[in-house]
């Protein structure tokens, strides 16, 4: 427990003041986060149809008002904790507004009601409630009620409303008016009793067990769940069919229908959030078995209820499991969720206790008014932090659903979609045996995204790749087919040489569905070999001789190729099978061998399996022909194209590089071996060879774009695939290179690529989608049970269509693991990619990463690409990769790897990123690399990225003065053993709402600017909070207490009370001379336009006493100049009344109020001229300065700090001068039992009868010190030379006497 909360319990409240109940305290903090937020206004209206007896209504209302004393509560922000009191003067009354002459009375009433509900309430002043009866016509009335949630909850409003109906009906029929409400005090008493009750201990114990190992709580949208000023609402009436099915199903399962409905909605939410478990907030009335059951007050609690995945169980069994849990939670439902959040350390930042709210109100019936038809309409029911599903039943047949959402997290369309989808989910769920059988997508979404989006049917000639190649060879024999290092083969030459080799292969056993391996570096021979293999009827198997021998031998022994085209040493295990180019036949002797058909294999490419065992993917002609023909036609390839071949043959991207040119009689330009990793070499080839089309793996594209000579390159098209292409890469591409950029996606198992997206210069998608299916291809995003998912939900990506591989060579087991029957189309197959993806609303697919590498930190799905974009956008680094690492179990962190110049300062980079991504996406560590590691295929080698030395980043010491200050405050307030680091989180270190308030006050004192409680909740981390404070620093120095001198913490501080202008800055000289003591300046609350004027000088002094006590505990020393002296005396009186020890009370040329009562009231000009005095000038010496501009101009010229004040602050000073005058005139001194030390301006007051002895009757004694100056000069550097030593001398005497 912090020292503040310890104080709280022992503190005596002023009379009539009471502590808030636990329920209220939670809401109070919510309101403190943003005082101007009206969302806690609970409001509704009752539609009364029929002839209303207005007088009886008024009477009934008045009687209810007598009983419901909570309606006249006011709330106060005391020095230590909030308090409340019943203040009959703020009791509301019934306003009656006649709208009968309006054109549209109903809508006029609605407008007025909505405007009123949107207005924040002044909790201190009250009234906190409002009631209006709108007369729409003779027989139609709206009765509007609006009450702040601190005073009442939803059930309380029902009580109040029904009570008016009850009394009205009784008065009408002349019967008794029923039982009156119990007083509000009963709720308070019960709340206090519970605090020390054994039951509370047991409840806490229950929740500790219940919420043990709670996973990160998520909801249907990511982001910070803090209520906005308003919410979105979608209202739907559920059909009677749904309601009766719900009731019947509940009966069958032997649970109540509200519990069944809650469980079904939770299942929907859990599945939408794509998590194993969801924690829903379930509102709990908290009145059963309570003495306060019939007290209008706020008792409602929100219970965090865990809903695990039970979708695989029969619905009835699952319902019982959840109903039992709900019942158990309700039994312990009095324990406050706010307290739970503190218990679990779930305060501030992104932390939350529950995601969506599910609120079922089975008996939501309108009040009864004798002789009237009544309908109830809810306008505002409290904060909507995230999303709330409310169901209102009339206990008979109908059920209404309201989906309320936080506009910061959900769009209007999202809210509509959830409403529609949830209803269709409920409809299906109520008929299903298991929820696992119910798709999350609605029938419309199913149609749209499963079928319409995949309507890719396109006629493609059913031929082999060989046939297409031979057509070109025969049609364009003289066209250049292949270019390599200055050599060119025409199609005729390619025809001749490949046919010759083919015949030789046939003799060695090649033929349909047989394999011939190729182990050649990029060369003309490689191309001839591939063409020859296909023409022999066989399929080719590319081998990379740089791979480990063991891997090669495994591949060869499983694939059993008939021949290996390559040098002998390429794989010496199979020496006999080798056929090096030197032994290739140059002319064909026969051509009459069996040819392949479209369902024979074209190639087999081995990929790494997750088990480490290489898997041979078998692709048939029909599949690759579809892929190549789609590409040729979709991108309009033609004879003029020159396509660069630079991808290793073992990577399936090379397939289109090799063969696409032969389908459009274009030219294949083969890059020299190893050139594919050399950006400079690639750039040179593109220029020298007039390349029109080439491919990059995105990380290679980044490296390429970092090459200076790339700028200004022009190509027709660049294709990317193999890993995620980011939005940043797209944008950089278009800045540097002229040409189209296309993002393709596909696993080896589906003939190279199955989806495409044009990453054009005008595309602004982020993340960049993998796009749409190619011809005759289907893309499905499905859940674990193979049901379609709606847009936005992460699921497994499945592929279907003609391009699917036949399977894995010799591994039927692995094939059946990955290839299944299509659940939606009989006789088709689908392939499970193992990639996670989600649909966009337009049907484009967004890749989310490998299913085994899904990035989720603190429950939030994080788009690492987005962070990469932010890093690259800083312009500070050349390349960046962001990944989530878990180097220590359970400690997942985002790490950024950057390639940058050695002069890069990571802090600068961090600042730049923080402007673009939310704090939860900020990398925990940055690692510099000379270059990003890549695999032999040119893909980023994630496994080669080193683990960061986290301690360095996590342990950064607080550096800026503001960070250092915050670190000190964290340490003090949280009683830490050592100073926390700059990345420390206030709430993680044990902070709670109470200590946050304390932190807030201390920051205000130390910096003079008020961060607001909200800022601490939003930025609980030191470095973030420091940044937020810097940004918000505009009103600096106008807080109610500022630190003028840090001083030594062991010395008693001196409090300097502001003069008439309200600011204490003028005491800077004095503060510096006060011998290293801590010095605080007390400033007027009137400086802030929002603050109400204090009612009296005595009240002001009392508030100052609160403030002073908060900052010091010991002997109090007070000094004040002018009006500040009057205040110092009054504060001293107040402190003595509180039995607090008072030391020095020094007045700097102050005279009692009686001297001023007769003076004329100052006007604004006089107030402005007072600024001159405040700045240390004699106003009489400057009679010419009468306008605001002239005075400000003079002060600016003079260099006075006042001249630099912003307008709002100047206005505050003027307000303070006027206000202080009013207070002084109305003040009558009480006696201070001690000595006043009076510093007299000896050169002043010559013709006025102002002497220190005027104070004699208001104290035990006056001693006078003469200072040779005028009144306005009392705080000047010269005067301070006299005053400061005198003060210090007296303090020493007081302390030596041990007056404490």
């Amino acid at each position: 427990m912090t020292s503040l909360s310890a104080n709280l319990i022992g503190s005596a409240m002023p009379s009539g003041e009471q502590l808030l109940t636990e329920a209220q305290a939670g809401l109070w903090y919510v309101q403190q986060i943003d005082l101007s937020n009206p969302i806690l206004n609970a409001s509704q209206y009752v539609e009364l149809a029929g002839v209303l007896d207005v007088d009886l209504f008024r009477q009934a209302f008045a009687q209810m008002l007598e009983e419901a004393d909570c309606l006249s509560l006011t709330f106060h922000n005391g020095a230590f904790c909030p308090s409340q009191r019943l203040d009959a003067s703020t009791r509301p009354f019934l306003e009656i507004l006649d709208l009968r002459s309006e054109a549209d009375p109903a809508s006029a009433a609605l407008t007025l009601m909505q405007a009123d509900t949107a207005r924040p309430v002044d909790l201190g002043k009250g009234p906190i409630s409002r009631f209006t009866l709108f007369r729409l016509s003779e027989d139609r009335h709206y009765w509007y009620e609006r009450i702040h949630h601190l005073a009442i909850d939803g059930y309380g409003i029902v009580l109040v409303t029904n009570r008016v109906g009850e009394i009205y009906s009784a008065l009408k029929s002349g019967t008794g008016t029923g039982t009156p409400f119990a007083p509000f005090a009963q709720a308070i008493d019960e709340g206090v009793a519970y605090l020390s009750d054994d039951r509370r201990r047991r409840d806490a114990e229950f929740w500790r067990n219940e919420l043990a190992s709670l996973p990160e709580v998520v909801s249907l949208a990511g982001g910070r769940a803090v209520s906005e000023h308003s919410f979105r609402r979608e209202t739907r009436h559920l059909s009677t069919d749904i309601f009766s099915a719900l009731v019947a199903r509940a009966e069958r399962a032997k649970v109540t229908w509200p519990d069944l409905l809650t469980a079904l909605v939770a299942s929907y939410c859990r599945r939408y959030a794509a998590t194993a478990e969801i924690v829903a907030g379930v509102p709990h009335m908290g009145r059963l078995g309570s003495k306060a059951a019939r007290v209008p007050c706020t008792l409602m609690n929100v219970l965090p209820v865990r809903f695990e995945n039970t979708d695989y169980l029969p619905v009835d069994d699952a319902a019982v499991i959840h109903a039992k849990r709900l019942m158990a939670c309700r039994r312990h439902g009095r324990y406050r969720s706010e307290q739970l959040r503190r218990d679990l350390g779930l305060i501030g930042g992104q932390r939350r206790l529950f995601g969506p709210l599910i609120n079922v109100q089975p008996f939501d019936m309108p009040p009864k008014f004798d002789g009237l038809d009544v309908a109830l309409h809810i306008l505002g029911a409290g904060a909507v932090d995230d999303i709330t599903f409310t169901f209102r039943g009339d206990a008979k047949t109908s059920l209404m659903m309201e989906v309320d959402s936080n506009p910061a997290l959900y769009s209007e369309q999202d809210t509509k979609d959830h409403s529609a989808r949830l209803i269709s989910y409920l409809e299906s769920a109520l008929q299903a045996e298991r929820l696992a059988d119910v798709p999350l997508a609605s029938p419309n979404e199913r149609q749209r995204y499963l079928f319409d989006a995949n309507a890719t049917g396109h006629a493609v000639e059913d031929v082999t790749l060989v046939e297409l190649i031979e057509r070109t060879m025969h049609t364009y024999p003289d066209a250049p087919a292949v270019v390599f290092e200055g050599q060119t083969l025409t199609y005729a030459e390619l025809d001749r040489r490949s046919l010759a080799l083919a015949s030789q292969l046939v003799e060695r056993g090649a033929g349909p569905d047989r394999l011939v391996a190729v182990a050649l570096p990029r060369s003309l021979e490689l191309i001839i070999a591939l063409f020859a293999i296909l023409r022999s009827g066989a399929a080719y198997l590319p081998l990379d001789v740089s791979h480990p021998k063991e891997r090669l031998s495994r591949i060869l022994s499983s694939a059993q190729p008939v021949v290996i085209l390559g040098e002998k040493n390429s794989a010496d295990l199979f020496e006999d099978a080798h056929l090096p180019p030197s032994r290739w036949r140059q002319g064909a002797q026969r051509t009459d061998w069996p040819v392949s058909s479209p369902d024979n294999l074209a190639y087999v490419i081995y990929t790494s399996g997750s088990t480490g065992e290489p898997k041979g993917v078998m692709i048939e002609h029909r599949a690759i022909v579809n892929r190549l023909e789609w590409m040729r036609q979709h991108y309009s390839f033609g004879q003029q194209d020159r396509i660069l071949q630079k991808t290793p043959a073992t990577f399936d991207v090379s397939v289109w590089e090799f063969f696409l040119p032969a389908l459009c009689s274009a030219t294949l330009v083969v890059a020299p071996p190893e050139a594919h990793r050399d950006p400079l070499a690639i750039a040179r080839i593109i220029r020298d060879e007039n390349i029109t089309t080439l491919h990059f793996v995105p990380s290679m594209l980044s490296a390429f774009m970092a090459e200076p000579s790339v700028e200004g390159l022009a190509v027709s098209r660049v294709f990317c695939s193999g890993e995620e292409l980011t939005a940043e890469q797209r944008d950089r591409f278009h800045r540097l290179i002229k040409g189209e950029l296309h993002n393709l996606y596909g696993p080896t198992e589906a003939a190279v690529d199955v989806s495409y997206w044009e990453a054009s210069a005008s595309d602004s998608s982020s993340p960049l989608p993998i796009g749409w299916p190619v011809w005759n291809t289907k893309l499905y995003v499905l859940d674990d049970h193979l049901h379609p998912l709606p847009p936005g939900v992460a699921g497994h990506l499945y592929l279907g269509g003609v391009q699917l591989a036949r399977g894995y060579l010799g591994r039927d087991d692995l094939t059946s693991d990955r290839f299944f029957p299509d659940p939606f189309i009989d006789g088709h197959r689908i392939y499970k990619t193992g990639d996670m993806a989600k649909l966009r609303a337009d049907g484009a697919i967004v890749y989310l990463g490998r299913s085994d590498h899904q990035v989720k930190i603190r429950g939030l799905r994080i788009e690492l690409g987005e962070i990469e974009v932010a890093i690259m956008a800083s312009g500070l680094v050349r390349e960046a990769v962001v990944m989530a690492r878990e180097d220590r179990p359970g400690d997942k962190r985002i790490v950024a790897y950057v390639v940058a110049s050695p002069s890069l300062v990571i802090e600068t980079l961090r600042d730049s990123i923080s402007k673009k991504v939310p704090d939860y996406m900020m990398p925990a560590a940055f690692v510099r690399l000379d270059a990003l590691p890549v695999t032999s295929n040119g893909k980023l080698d994630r496994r080669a990225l080193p683990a960061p030395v986290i301690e360095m980043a996590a342990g950064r010491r607080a550096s800026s003065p503001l960070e250092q200050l915050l670190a000190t405050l964290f340490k003090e307030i949280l009683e830490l053993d050592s100073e926390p680091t700059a990345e420390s989180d206030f709430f993680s270190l044990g902070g709670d709402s109470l200590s946050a308030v304390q932190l807030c006050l201390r920051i205000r004192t130390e910096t003079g600017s008020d961060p607001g409680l909200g800022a601490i909740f939003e930025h609980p981390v030191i470095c973030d909070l420091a940044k937020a404070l810097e940004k918000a620093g505009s009103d600096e120095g106008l807080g109610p207490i500022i630190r003028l001198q840090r001083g030594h913490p062991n010395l008693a501080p001196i409090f300097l009370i502001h003069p008439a202008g309200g600011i204490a800055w003028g005491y800077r000289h004095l503060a510096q001379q006060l011998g290293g003591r801590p010095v605080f300046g007390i400033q007027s609350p009137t400086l802030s336009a929002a603050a109400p004027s204090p009612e009296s000088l005595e009240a002001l002094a009392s508030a100052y006493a609160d403030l002073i006590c908060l900052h010091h505990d010991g002997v109090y020393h007070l000094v004040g100049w002018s009006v500040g002296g009057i205040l110092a005396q009054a504060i001293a009186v107040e402190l003595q009344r509180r039995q607090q020890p008072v030391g020095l009370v020094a007045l700097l040329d102050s005279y009692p109020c009686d001297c001023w009562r007769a003076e004329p009231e100052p006007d604004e000009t006089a107030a402005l001229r007072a600024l001159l005095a405040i700045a240390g000038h004699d106003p009489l010496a400057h009679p010419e300065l009468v306008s605001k501009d002239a005075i400000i101009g003079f002060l600016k010229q003079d260099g006075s700090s006042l001249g630099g004040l912003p307008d709002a602050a100047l206005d505050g000073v003027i307000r303070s001068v006027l206000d202080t005058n009013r207070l002084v005139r109305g003040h009558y001194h009480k006696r201070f039992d001690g000595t006043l030390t009076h510093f007299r301006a000896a050169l002043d007051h010559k013709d006025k009868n102002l002497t220190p002895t005027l104070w004699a009757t208001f104290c035990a004694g006056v001693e006078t010190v003469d200072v040779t100056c005028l009144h306005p000069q009392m705080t000047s550097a010269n005067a301070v030379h006299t005053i400061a030593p005198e003060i210090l001398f007296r303090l020493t005497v007081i302390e030596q006497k041990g007056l404490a």
Partner: protein
Amino acid sequence: MTITLEKMRADVAAIIHEDPSEIGFDDNLMDLGLDSMRLMNLILTWQEAGVDLDFGEFAEEFTLSGWWRAIEAKRANA
């Protein structure tokens, strides 16, 4: 049909799937699993049988004997 304490106990027992003898007159019914939904259903039945108490009055003391006292008091005042 007039309401009796035994009848109330039987109704409560039925709605929480317990045997009436298992329910003590001073047992906290919340601990036995009676929730607001079930209570409201009971109240609707009992109101039809002439009991003039509302939800809040039932909620204040959550035992059968407490309810019975409230009903008796109401009858005495009527």
